[in-house]
């Protein structure tokens, strides 16, 4: 190994953004060798994105700053090559596959880099069709981006950088916008490409368990601008470093830990499927037996009721068919299913943005078909995925007061209610701040606060934690849980995040092909293989763990695990 020249080499590398006082990266020493597949993990703000930007040239060419130390990409200094020279060596697939889709059609998007290289049209057409075959989008060449699914867009993005015959493929959070099953496929495809094309692959991702669906050679942990660990997955998973850095470890390892096992690298913990569990089986079984879950009393007071709801944009092509369910007061429910299954349509119908073809929606027992969007908005609060799509006032106080101001609530009452809400949401110290000074998680809180101030009966959140690292995820979810438990607010969440559904909701409604195919506890949903397959979900690894430990009731095991973790969090 030592004779081979590293393809990426950082030597005592430090980088400081021009606008910042402190460096973002300190003393980085890192070598990546040709053909390696490396996973880079770290919480938000750890510097892992900056590290990636140093490799693809966005730093320093688009984001200037000061560097000390040395960096070599394929033996050359990036400053000498420029961002365009680097783009011949490093292909970057950005997180936002929607935004980076530049062309009007798939073919043009793939050809974009070739066009900029002034390749002849005939050569271009051939090259595009070759690469499209590799990522299996050859059938879609003439489609517009709006006609593609999230997974397909990502394939096109990959093709778009692979046309350049790059040596290094850099994936910036490839799983962020994908449903679990599509994410799994993406990881498999990345793996296949790295094997077949002999490229070096770097994956930046905080969803560790999903990213480890296929083997990686090494995992690099970045924390507070330094490299904290650089080791094989098996070693890292047994080291406890992940926890220290606030990165979520795979669920089956948490379970093993709770059961009192010390996992050793020789058990090969990288994949639950191939892990040797024989040393731990007895302990896991014993732990499972000693957990006693209290029975929950079911609530029966209906907040939202839906009967025989049908909807279609084009007659004869139903988006939703005969939807029936009730949400009860104080519940925390998740709606899951693959992209485009009709989840968002469902929430749009409830909020009145769309009108159903047939069926009834009730709020507190009364039909709401006659209510306007505004009237529904007083009782049903919708929080959008991206806070930037909701915030319209520069100051926090005004933003939260907006809903009350337009309803003509007296000034004194507004002040009182906004202040009370600010306190609930932990934003009171920031009340006079401009919104732009807040972090993403805080902005999310502002949007939630701006809805809460109207005292809604139910909150509907669209992907509340998308793109957030573990710490921010916990922050947002614990906050919602508190609202739910202490204030009794009913919460309905649309999500792709299997962890969220498992850890924070008691009930999951699974939508697939416009129908509800299951309405049960998350543990049951995530242990049912046929449902998981139809709805593009991913079976939880806890299930595999239970089965491999010969536990007869794997669903119960998952429930027990969740109960145990919740108790643990509450007693911190």
């Amino acid at each position, binding site marked *: 190994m030592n004779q081979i020249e590293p393809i990426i080499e950082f030597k005592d590398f430090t980088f400081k953004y021009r606008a910042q006082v402190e460096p973002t990266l300190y003393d980085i020493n890192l070598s990546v060798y040709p053909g390696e597949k490396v996973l880079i993990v770290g919480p938000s703000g750890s510097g892992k994105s900056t590290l990636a930007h140093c490799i693809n040239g966005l730093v320093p060419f688009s984001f200037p700053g000061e560097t000390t130390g040395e960096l070599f990409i394929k033996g050359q200094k990036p400053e000498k090559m420029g961002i365009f020279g680097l783009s011949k060596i490093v292909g970057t697939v950005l997180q936002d596959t929607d935004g980076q889709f530049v062309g009007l059609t798939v073919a043009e998007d793939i050809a974009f880099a070739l*066009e900029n290289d002034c390749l002849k049209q005939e050569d271009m057409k051939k090259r595009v069709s070759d690469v499209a075959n590799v990522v299996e989008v050859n059938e879609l060449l003439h489609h517009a981006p709006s006609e593609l699914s999230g997974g397909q867009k990502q394939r096109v993005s990959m093709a778009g950088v692979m046309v350049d015959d790059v040596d290094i493929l850099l994936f910036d959070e490839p799983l962020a916008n994908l449903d679990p099953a599509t994410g799994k496929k993406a990881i498999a495809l990345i793996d296949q490409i790295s094997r077949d094309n002999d490229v070096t692959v770097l994956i930046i991702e905080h969803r560790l368990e999903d990213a480890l669906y296929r083997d990686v050679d090494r995992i690099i942990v970045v924390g507070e601008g330094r490299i904290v660990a650089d080791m094989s997955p098996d070693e890292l998973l047994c080291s406890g470093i992940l926890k220290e850095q606030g990165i979520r470890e795979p669920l089956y390892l948490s379970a093993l830990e709770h059961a009192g096992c010390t996992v050793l690298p020789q058990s090969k913990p990288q994949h639950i499927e191939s892990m040797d569990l024989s040393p731990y089986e007895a302990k896991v079984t014993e732990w499972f037996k000693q957990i006693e879950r209290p029975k929950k009393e079911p609530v029966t007071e209906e907040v939202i009721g839906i009967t025989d709801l049908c909807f279609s944009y084009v007659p004869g092509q139903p988006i939703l068919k005969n939807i029936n369910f009730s949400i009860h007061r104080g519940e925390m429910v998740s709606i899951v299913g693959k992209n485009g299954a009709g989840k968002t349509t469902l929430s749009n119908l409830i909020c009145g943005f769309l009108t159903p073809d047939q069926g009834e929606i009730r709020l507190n027992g009364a039909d709401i078909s006659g209510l306007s969007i505004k009237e529904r908005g007083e009782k049903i609060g919708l929080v959008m995925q*991206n806070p930037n799509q909701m915030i319209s006032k520069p100051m926090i106080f005004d933003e939260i007061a907006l809903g009350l101001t*337009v309803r003509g609530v007296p000034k004194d009452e507004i002040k009182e209610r906004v202040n009370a809400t600010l306190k609930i949401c932990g934003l009171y110290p920031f009340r006079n701040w401009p919104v732009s000074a807040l972090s993403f998680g805080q902005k999310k809180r502002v949007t939630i606060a701006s809805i809460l101030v109207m005292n809604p009966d139910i909150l509907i959140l669209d992907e509340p934690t998308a793109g957030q690292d573990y710490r921010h995820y916990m922050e947002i979810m614990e906050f919602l849980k508190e609202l739910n438990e202490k204030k009794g607010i009913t919460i309905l969440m649309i999500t792709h995040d299997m962890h969220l559904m498992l850890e924070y909701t008691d009930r999951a409604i699974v939508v697939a092909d416009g129908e509800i195919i299951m309405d049960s506890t998350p543990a049951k949903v995530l242990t049912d293989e046929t449902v998981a397959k139809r709805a593009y979900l991913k079976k939880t690894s806890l299930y595999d763990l239970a089965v491999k430990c010969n536990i007869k009731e794997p669903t119960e095991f998952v429930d027990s695990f969740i109960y145990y973790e919740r108790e643990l969090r509450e007693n911190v």
Partner: protein
Amino acid sequence: MSRILTYEEKNTWIHGLSGVTKFLFFLVWSIVSMLTYDTRVLAVMLLLSFVIFKVSKTSWKQVGTVFKFILLFLVLNLLAVFLFSPNQGTAIYGTRTVLVPLVGRYSITKEQLFYEFNIMLKYFTVIPAVLMFIVTTNPSEFAASLNKVGVSYKISYAIAIALRYVPDVQSDFTKIKHAQEARGIEMSKKASLMERIKNMSAILFPLIFSSMDRIDVVSNAMELRGFGKNKRRTWYAGKKLTGKDYAVMIATVLFAVAALVITFYDGNRFYNPFQ
């Protein structure tokens, strides 16, 4: 689903032409139609317009809404002309044949009606040409053609990419509008016009900010894939000019010359049936 006023791929003779050819035709056609008031020329152009419209297999669904919108403007325009200069027709044609006497100088004259009829003809000769150009020209191919005739590729690409993001921004707009309506910002007719204009800012601000995020991502993505590296670039969707294109261009120019000669032959822009 066919979107209003967007390019749709169809296999017609007109779709086969290069974007440059169609752009030239559209420009020349509009200029001629603007210059001439010669009813004979306009009548021929009107006829040709409808033929072109038919040949391009443009469906009513693609352009109907916009067409109605333009019609509204046409009506307003005609009324305004009558309101501000009811005797324009007389001034041009030199005679005054009153059909319906109204108050003061406002009388409906044959000459005024004929003059306004010509204005209407102008509208109807240009509209099909504009619509045809928009719905039969692939934006990427058009960007490529513009670049070929000497426009900087950065400018021509900007046109194509703006079109790429129109649907995305539209869907953002709808999402934001809904969310703000749910918060109680009234955008329906229930609110007064002033209020609606004021409330518009509640949608525009988030829209602008989320579009800025988008621009950031796109410009990084473009740079990472080498946009702006060379002085020139090639185009995947580019079309070579063929014999057909040259034929159409020559025909267009010849037609323009002929039309203008006929128009100005008698010294002014108008054809006068009253003398």
